[in-house]
């Protein structure tokens, strides 16, 4: 059996984190969801700093754009500039449908851009599809490299 996958969700809205958690609850990939509420925390988590010294290296990052302290695009830029983080796929998960946000995200190396659907079933479908694609279909870089 495949080892469980680890997912880091960077989002300041606990309600969205809870929804993603619900969406992942009945899954076969046994994904573990970790979450942080702002961009600075996200970088601390990824770099195992401070209270995140023992944090696991996630297999996938789900990143909101509009974040306190350090916004999503800044986190994305920092991740793609770090040799040890740039292999982790980043899914931008935002309400924004603005063309400039989408284009900018891909410019900065986002692996995909998904708009948060307003409807519950669409939201669940989006999260489950992400999980299925990244953990069931795609070949991710081996852990610890």
């Amino acid at each position, binding site marked *: 059996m495949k080892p469980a996958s680890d997912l880091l969700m960077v989002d300041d*809205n606990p309600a969205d984190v809870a929804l993603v958690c619900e969406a992942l609850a009945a899954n076969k990939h046994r994904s573990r969801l970790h979450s942080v509420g702002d961009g600075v925390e996200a970088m601390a988590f990824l770099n195992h700093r401070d209270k995140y010294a023992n944090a696991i290296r996630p297999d996938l990052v789900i990143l909101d754009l509009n974040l306190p302290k350090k916004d999503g695009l800044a986190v994305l830029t920092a991740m793609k500039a770090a040799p040890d983080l740039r292999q982790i796929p980043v899914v931008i998960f935002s309400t924004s449908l603005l063309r400039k946000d989408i284009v900018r995200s891909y410019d900065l190396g986002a692996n995909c851009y998904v708009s948060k659907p307003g409807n*519950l079933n669409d*939201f669940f479908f989006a999260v489950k599809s992400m999980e299925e694609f990244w953990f069931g279909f795609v070949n991710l870089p081996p852990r610890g490299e």
Partner: protein
Amino acid sequence: MSSAGTKLGTQDSAVPQTKLRALLVEDNALDATLVVRALNKDGFDVAADVVQDEAAFRRMLRSHPPEIVLADYNLPTWKGMEVLKVLRSEGLDIPMILVSGALGDVTAVECIKQGATDYVLKDGLARLPEVVRRALREKHERSLRQQAERDLAKKVDELARSNADLEQFAYVASHDLQEPLRMVTAYTQLLGERYRGKLDENADKFIGYASEGAQRMQVLIQDLLAFSRVGRNEPTSKTVDCNAVMQEVVQTLATTIQESGASVSYAELPAVWADRTQVAQLFQNLIGNAIKFRGEKPPVVAVQAEAAGERWQFSVSDNGIGIASEHAENIFVVFQRLHARTEYPGNGIGLAICKKIVERYGGKIWMESQPGQGSTFKFTLPAHGPDGKQEVKADAKHDSKHGARQDSKSEVQR
């Protein structure tokens, strides 16, 4: 007489007198007295300063700004016409009348062209009071008009600003409202799904109402966003071939057309000068409505265009349920609906967007209809850009599965 300026006193008179501060440009003291006397004889109470060179003239303009300047044409050191230049350079709008001994027709016409109100010959001074009165009247009217123009420009400015503020507000509000609303929608749905039948009957019903309300509000906000987006950016106008746009629209509406058994036909359409996306939205909304508000028969929708000066006038007509004429105006108001939501779904945003698009290009949109007889929506769009630019379109093929088929070549005039 000194060049610094000479005071000429007023004279007694029985007639009611209009006080008048005049500046005379004159080298002949007697002539100056005659001029003042002519005015005082006919309803004026003149306080006059007399100067005869430019320096004194400029000084006097500043120290005792006159209501009128009366200038001799020929002075030993200065030409009376130079007075106009000085007035202009000082930015003063003071009427100037030439009072001269002999003035040829050509010179007189030239003076008036340069801005003199009129000219009066020294041997015809009786005419002077009337000329002065007219000059003062015109000056008054001019300043009223200028004030009105300034007021209007200010109003236009304010209106443009408050309009822009409103657009911005609508956009920000609707965008920021989406976020919390998404939570309400998602979690009422989640409650509804997870706890259905586990609470009591009422609870299921209540959660259902809350959830439906939230979902409807989401659609409303999205519509509002779409509406405010129409005015947000400067339109990127270019030549748009309406045949190609119609082809696209028919494709977009393919399912609707098929399901309703509609026939959508369009005659040879011209090109317009507008934003392509907005033109497509305009046609799509109108044709979508024509199909939506259908009667018993399968919908028949026809799009046509005819030249109307610098514009093209389009018409989209259908054989649907029609609209009573008393609703002709308010159907274009945002969120106005004539039918129950259960009868015909929608939020009443489509026509409001159409109106906003058409008006962006200085056009008009209106409706002609009778209940039961179908309706025709007409609108105008610019035929070309401000510089008259219009590329000539090559051929266009229209092929709608349920629509008219045309293989002729389209040639856009002008």
